């Protein structure tokens, strides 16, 4: 009751099933979730809305994860929003570089459990804004 606002999370993921499962898991955990199935759509969303956190896949059509995060950091909105990176790549992805250059909070390698993602998200959100207990009636 003290916290009425749900944390708003953007998920940039091109695989529809994966996106669906993640949305379901995050909603269950009390997050307000928006899906973007390409990098460009994710950039559009970030220009339009404020997010408490962004989860992005590396592999996406039109614009890959790194390009999206770069655009995000250079934009006006959401330029400091915590980002969690999800990747199916192997050693080629330099997670240290992502942390240093773009302030990426965590890099998760596939296959990962959605529950792990939820834990990471909670870790990078300011304590007060995390709404674990959902307030019914608010959409």
């Amino acid at each position, binding site marked *: 009751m003290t916290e009425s606002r749900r944390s708003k999370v953007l998920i940039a993921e091109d*695989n529809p*099933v*994966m996106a*669906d*499962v*993640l949305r*379901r*898991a995050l909603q*269950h955990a009390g997050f307000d979730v928006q899906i973007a199935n390409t990098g460009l759509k994710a950039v559009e969303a970030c220009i339009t809305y404020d997010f408490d956190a962004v989860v992005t896949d590396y*592999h*996406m*059509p*039109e614009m*890959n994860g790194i390009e999206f995060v770069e655009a995000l950091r250079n934009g006006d909105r959401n330029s400091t929003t915590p980002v969690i990176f999800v990747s*199916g*790549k*192997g*050693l*080629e992805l330099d997670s240290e570089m992502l942390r240093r250059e773009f302030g990426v909070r965590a890099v998760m*390698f*596939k*296959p*990962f*459990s*959605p*529950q792990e993602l939820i834990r990471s998200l909670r870790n990078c959100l300011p304590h007060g804004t995390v709404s674990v207990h959902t307030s019914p009636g608010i959409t």
Partner: protein
Amino acid sequence: MNSRASSLKLTRRLLSTYLLFGLLSIVAVAVGMAALIDAASGNSAQQSLLARLKSAASEITTQLESGDEDGIQNAVTATAEANDLLFCAVIDGDGVIRAHTTKGFIGYNSPVSFSVAQFPGMIERISYLHEDGTGPREYWIPLRNERHSFGTLQVSLPAQRLSSGLTNLLRQNAGLALAFPLLLLLAGGNRLRRVVSTSTVIGQQLARLAEDDSFSLERLRPVEEKGRESVGWNRLVSRASQFESFTSLESRLSEVLGGFRGERFEQILQALTDGVAVTDESGQVTFANEAFARLLERPLPEIMGEPVETIIPQGMPGNVAVLKEQTAEPSRPGVVELWKSDDVADGLLRLGHSPLLSNDGQVRSQLWSLRDITQQKLIEHTRDQFVDTATHELRTPLSTIKACAEALELYDDIDVETQKHYLNTINNESTRLGRFVDEFLNISRMEAGSLTLNRHSTQFERLLNEVVNKSRPAMELKQIEFSIVVPPKLPELNIDKDKIAAAMMNILGNAEKYTPIGGEVKLLAELNDREVRVHVEDTGPGISQEELPRIFNKFFRSEDQRIREITGTGLGLSFAQEVLRLHGGNLTATSELNHGSRFTMTLPAREE
């Protein structure tokens, strides 16, 4: 200077030797002469005999004074014995024998009597002479004291006892006096000859050296070691012969090696597939083999005398800069990769350089080696790409499976349709994983050459339908217009059904994967007397003319960003081509960038 000093020294030595022996001879002659004079004048034996006889006479005189007849006789006998006389007798003033070594004569008158009493000396008389000039000699000695004369002492002794000692001494001394200087002169001459002979032998050899131009140092002979000159000469000869044998060995070696250098090394270097070149101190090419020129795509004569910087590919601006930076320190070896353009496929050369040390340890020239590493780089590149792709190909389906399974496990509020959708997804992703493993294994078999066909008589039409039906759902999902044109009657083919189906699935799968949503894919089958052809056309991004020849290479993936965004192993086309090749057919492709591609599978019609 030295020669004059040594010749002076030799003269001095000769002179000193000559003087030494001359002096010694003079001394010897003088000593001999002195001895002769002494022998002639001395007569020492006679003197001592006469002295002894005088003392004997005075003793007998004493006996005569006392009148002791026995004492007189004893003294006479003793004197005779002591002096080894022939006889000894005392004759009184009246000429009567008073004592005698032959006692029977006593009392008789002496046959020869001559008073010597009034004389102070003695009388020597030779009584008899042999033919050789010797004979007994007699001496008469007066016997008296101050007041009274008692008579005469007569003694006789062999003359040679007196004369032989004298003459022998004379003879010996004369011989020595002659022989010793002679000996000395001989010894001196010998010594002189030895001194002179060493110099002569050395002098002769030096003269020959001066006269004969072809006289080799090896023909110098050592001399017998006498004196320091000969030792010095012998050292000179041994050094000279060492030097001579060393130079001849060196010349033989260089002859042998020179032959090798000249021909064999040249052949070896020219036969190398790697380029080899040498540059001199000024950086200009002084040697290059054919391969070096060929790899640089320039004629060999054109690169001779040129600096390496100007003959390497100028395609990439970094080439020359990197090379200059590396060769700034000539003593350090290095390797430069020379890119003909920014695309590896255009060619990549590896240029190595290492310093060549000259005899004084200085770097005067550089050895260059050149190798075409385009293929190697391409393989490395595609391998890296494959590892990346394979990781992605494994991780992505696993991730979806895990997410779906977790959702199904955790959330009870999922409607049945979604549940089914999730389960389907799990099924499909597992199939995708399985297919990847199959593809991978097929490629491994292809590599090992153990990909074999299991041929059966197959209704080709039915096979086509199966493949089309399998790929249709994915096409529909992307709203791709999928049209199939097949002639009415297709023959039965003796083929490996599974592998041909897999190859077709790869091609149709690619068409679906790369064709954008709402695009178009066509399958056209053709039949003539000899073969069956199946074309698959798409409206995807197409393949550039540069990449088209390489699309069937294992692990090849296009650099086109539109293609890179879609995952793939780079194995599908390679596998499909190999399968068709094993069937006696082939797989070809034509494409137009940004418009689409057309893949054609050709299979021989069943032989009747």
